């Protein structure tokens, strides 16, 4: 039954994809026969203004690309992901590595703070009451709002972006960990009590596995937010990263590359989320 449903779903997804591609093609296909002229007249004018002729050179695809042009640009980007021709011209792989590195570092720092602190808050009603006002106040602040403060105090743009990732990842992990730890079934804690389990063993063998689904869910939400925020942060600070790549290609008016960057961001985000989905499945227990 569910196999059949999955098959139907996949078929329908494929149909949607075809529909989208067709619509895309319909909206962007040149009205004149291909190969003879450039795309819209506006962009032709612009090209003339910029001193460029309508080019057969695929590097110079201007305006919104057709699906075929996009595929071409994507293939070119993917063929040499790690080339490095100076600060403004790096392969997509290098840019992604910069972004993932920043996210990874900020995220790891956030984990190191949020999970132990969440444990403490979840286990101590006093600490919960003491820290709750701060969490409630700090959590709704857009992480990018911290950027000027970070830049002023840290004075290094890369470290500032890592800090921004840290600050945006910390809250979901902290809140979910505290929530998961506070919600551990009394029965299991009573078992640990009657067995005189040491605090450390209790934390790792009872509370951690019991709260793991909530903690991993928090980590998953944090990762999603971190990946959203890093793009914006890199667009702001510039230099390197997929966000900077996107902004740079916008400045070059290479919409095909912008689209490619957008698609890459989507794919990477999806992979990260799936990975957490798999971990979540591993730690979820049936009662």
């Amino acid at each position, binding site marked *: 039954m569910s196999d059949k449903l999955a098959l139907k779903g996949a078929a329908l997804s494929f149909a949607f994809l075809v529909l989208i591609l067709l619509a895309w093609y319909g909206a962007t296909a040149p009205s004149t026969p291909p190969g003879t002229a450039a795309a819209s007249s506006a962009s032709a004018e612009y090209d003339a203004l910029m001193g460029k002729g309508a080019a057969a050179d695929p590097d110079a695809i201007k305006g919104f690309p057709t699906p075929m042009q996009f595929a071409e640009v994507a293939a070119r980007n993917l063929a040499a992901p790690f080339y490095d021709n100076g600060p403004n011209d790096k392969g997509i792989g290098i840019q992604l590595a910069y972004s993932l590195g920043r996210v990874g570092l900020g995220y790891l720092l956030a984990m190191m703070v949020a999970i132990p602190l969440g444990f403490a808050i979840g286990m101590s009603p006093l600490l919960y009451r003491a820290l709750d006002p701060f969490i409630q106040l700090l959590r709704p602040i857009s992480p990018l709002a911290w950027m000027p403060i970070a830049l002023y105090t840290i004075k290094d743009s890369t470290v500032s972006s890592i800090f921004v990732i840290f600050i945006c990842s910390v809250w979901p992990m902290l809140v979910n960990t505290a929530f998961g730890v506070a919600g551990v*079934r009394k*029965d*299991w804690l*009573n*078992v640990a*009590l*009657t*067995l*005189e*389990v040491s605090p450390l*063993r209790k934390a790792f*063998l*009872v509370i951690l*596995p*019991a709260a*793991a689904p909530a903690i991993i869910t928090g980590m998953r939400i944090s990762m999603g937010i971190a990946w959203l925020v890093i793009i914006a942060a890199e667009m702001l600070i510039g230099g390197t990263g997929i966000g900077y790549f996107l902004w740079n290609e916008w400045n070059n008016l290479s919409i095909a590359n912008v689209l490619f960057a957008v698609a890459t961001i989507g794919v990477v985000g999806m992979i990260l989320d799936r990975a957490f989905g798999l971990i979540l499945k591993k*730690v979820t*227990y*049936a*009662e």
Partner: protein
Amino acid sequence: MPNDTNPAGIVRPLVEVDRLAKVYKPGTPPVFEDVSFTIDRGEFICIIGHSGCGKSTILNVLAGLEKASKGNVIMDNLEMTGPGLDRGVVFQSHALMPWMTVEQNIAFAIRSRHPEWSRRRIADHGARFIDLVGLTAAAKKKPSELSGGMKQRVGIARAFAIEPKMLLLDEPFGALDALTRGNIQDELLKICAETEQTVFMITHDVDEAILLADRIFLMSNGPHARIAEMVVNTMPKDRKRETMHHDPRFYAIRNHLVDFLVHRSKTFQAMTATASGQPHVPVIVRPGLEEEESAPAPERGHPPLHIVA
């Protein structure tokens, strides 16, 4: 009973409970009060009473998971202050860790009891108790893959595996069907006979109490609940589930218990509600042996009478 055979003469009971009372919310009447009893080594106690009279609360106080408002508990000559490995608890809700397999649940308990043991030794020791409750085939399963009865048996194996001085069982068979219940009762009897285990158990099942218990404590209704009567099981220790109903004493005990639950638990409450605060002495009854007459409780120790049938 060890008390009878010990040449040293005076042996204190394993557990002495003195004037226990519990008030959950200040200003409300106590759930129970003036609860005093002793449990000898190797003795099997069942406690029966209507829902809400405070049986679980008493058991949790004995387990050290709940603080009494008044009174104290002495175990093995020491005042009891908290939970510990000398008492094995079988929880009403089985309380297995769902992320661990049967084996791991039991190994977790054994490792807590014997941190110095090797992995191998823990596994062997655990396997013995898994076998004891007949779950060897399910040892690698998670609790969610087990039936209610199997889960309950894992809980029992876990409590037994730490070889505690006393077992505390909170309605352990409540959720089981009659057949499984009977089988586990037989297993429990067998294990208790082999290991001279001391047991304190809550049950709602009168027949179960008669089969298992040396003495049955009857609690009156709450609030102000007390232990109204202590019924000595006058049937021989080697009673069997299949044959015990041939014994005329079985009916004497059974009628006495049912009669208490239906009538006397209420009248007792009405009687004591007015006399609240007065020290209370439970009645000791030996149905089928003597006429149901009341005798005041002796200071300590209630050696059950052994009758050759």
